[in-house]
């Protein structure tokens, strides 16, 4: 009886030992293989139609999984040390792969916030994939009509990376139209749009937004002031353009403009500041000393 027990115990030990040894060796080999080769194949490589077909009625779930996969690709890498511990190493990111995962996730669920937010957090920066990011954000914006964030990010990218204040302002103004958009968006958008030579567009969008707002709502008065200021700027810009057409050169100052027949008087500024025209001909309603910062310029 005892011999039988001992024999069974030894057999069990042998089985556990061989299992432990083989699995441990397999894991070590797998870790080593992962260090040298990155997994670049997955469902994200499938054509969109096949991806949709494969997901069936679980598109959302699969999109969720893919964002986790993207997160794993972007996460820190732990490498096993010979001593048996782990250390974190700077990871080499496979940006085209990561972008493909975001695209695949968006094909399955174009409304998922995590996709565009994480994409915005990584792709325009080290990856320098700005056009791709804007595409992702535009799809998100089209599919999240209740969310101002995608357009806001697009506007930020246009301003920060592309140095295009005009288009950035338009995007901010577009974002401002979404329900529950923060009050700073239209004001910021108007400023940028005007800076980028999009004054008329900014005025039109501000007017449409004010038409949908109640005067009692917070931010209404601020938006109205901004609109008045933009309208003032537009009057001056048109006068400056007419002056240039007539005289064959830009006006050197607002005084010269008002002295000519093009502008009878400067329009009122709701911020109680003087309008200013810098050496490039850009009109400011909130920088009366805009010429001071320019070399050799004088204040208006």
């Amino acid at each position, binding site marked *: 009886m005892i011999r039988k027990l001992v024999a069974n115990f030894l057999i069990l030990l042998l089985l556990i030992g061989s299992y432990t040894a083989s699995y441990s060796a397999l894991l070590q080999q797998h870790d080593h293989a992962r260090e040298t080769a990155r997994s670049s194949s997955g469902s994200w490589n499938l054509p969109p139609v096949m991806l949709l*077909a494969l997901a069936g*009625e*679980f598109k959302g*779930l699969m999109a969720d999984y893919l964002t986790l996969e993207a997160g794993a690709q972007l996460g820190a890498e732990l490498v096993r040390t010979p001593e048996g511990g782990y250390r974190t190493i700077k990871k080499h990111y496979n940006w085209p792969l990561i972008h493909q995962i975001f695209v695949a996730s968006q094909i399955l*669920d174009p409304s998922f916030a*995590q996709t565009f*937010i994480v994409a915005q957090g990584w792709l325009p920066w080290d990856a320098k994939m700005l056009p791709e990011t804007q595409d992702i954000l535009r799809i998100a914006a089209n599919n999240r009509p209740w969310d101002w964030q995608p357009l806001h990010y697009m506007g930020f990218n246009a301003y920060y990376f592309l140095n295009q204040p005009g288009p950035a302002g338009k995007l901010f103004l577009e974002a401002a139209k979404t329900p529950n958009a923060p009050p700073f968006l239209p004001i910021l958008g108007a400023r940028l749009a005007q800076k980028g030579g999009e004054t008329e567009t900014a005025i039109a969008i501000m007017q449409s937004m004010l038409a949908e707002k109640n005067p009692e709502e917070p931010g209404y008065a601020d938006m109205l002031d901004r609109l008045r200021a933009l309208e003032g700027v537009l009057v001056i810009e048109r006068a400056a353009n007419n002056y240039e057409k007539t005289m064959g050169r830009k006006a050197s100052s607002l005084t010269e403009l008002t002295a000519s027949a093009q502008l009878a008087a400067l329009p009122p500024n709701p911020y109680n500041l003087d309008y200013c025209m810098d050496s490039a001909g850009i009109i400011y309603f909130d920088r009366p000393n805009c010429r001071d910062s320019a070399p050799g310029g004088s204040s208006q």
Partner: protein
Amino acid sequence: MRALRNVWFLALATCTEGIRHRALWAIVCLASILTMANLGVTTLYSWDLGKVSVEFGLSSVAFTGLLLVFFLGMKILADDLERSRIFMLLSRPVSIWQYLTGKFLGLSMILFLATIILGLSAALSMRYVLLQYAAFVPPNFSWLTCIMALACQWLSLVVVLAMSVLCFSFAKQPFVALLLAVSSYLVGQNMELLRRVVVENPQAGVLVGQERLVIALSWIFPNLSLFDKKYAAAYGMAFSGQEFLLLCLYSISYSALLLYFSTLLFKRKELA
């Protein structure tokens, strides 16, 4: 009147048999645990937690429902034939259509019960997540939409069950019936996608010029994607009561049609 009573008695017996089946409770328990896993899964995400929670919960119900249809439902049907249990019923004044309809209704009732249990389980975990992460609840989230999405999920399973009954009616082997039912489900899930690809894409590979064929197929196979309202529930997008009623009508009429054809095919089957 007597015919409907026979259908009801058979449905009741099938439902009782199914409810007492251990496999049903194993699947339901596992699925309930799965819906509770919702709580852990949501914490893996930083945004749109509400959507992740709702979609995970509803997907659990969908997946479990499919398991019940393909494994429990088809097993109950197949056992009737393979173990000659059907003789006990057909030696009574019960017609083939009463037998099939009664079986179908009984299995639908089992699916309904499972959907309710799983839906409640999913709702509990969703409620917890939505309370914990209120900032991430979609602006127009609605429990009514979730309930309607759950109901649509059940209707979809009923259609899949009807397809399974049809496959069971003409296939010689239960395994073949199972394969056919699963294939029909996959086709049904992607029928709308296929139709859009062919109609909108002039370079749709081998399907170029086959628009009519694909449209004809889209009328033959069920359009299961119409019942998929997880996206709407997850993002708080309302879908109209009219659409819901039409889905109910579509599900009932299509299932009735399949049962009709099942009866015709089953009558030609040699039962022994």
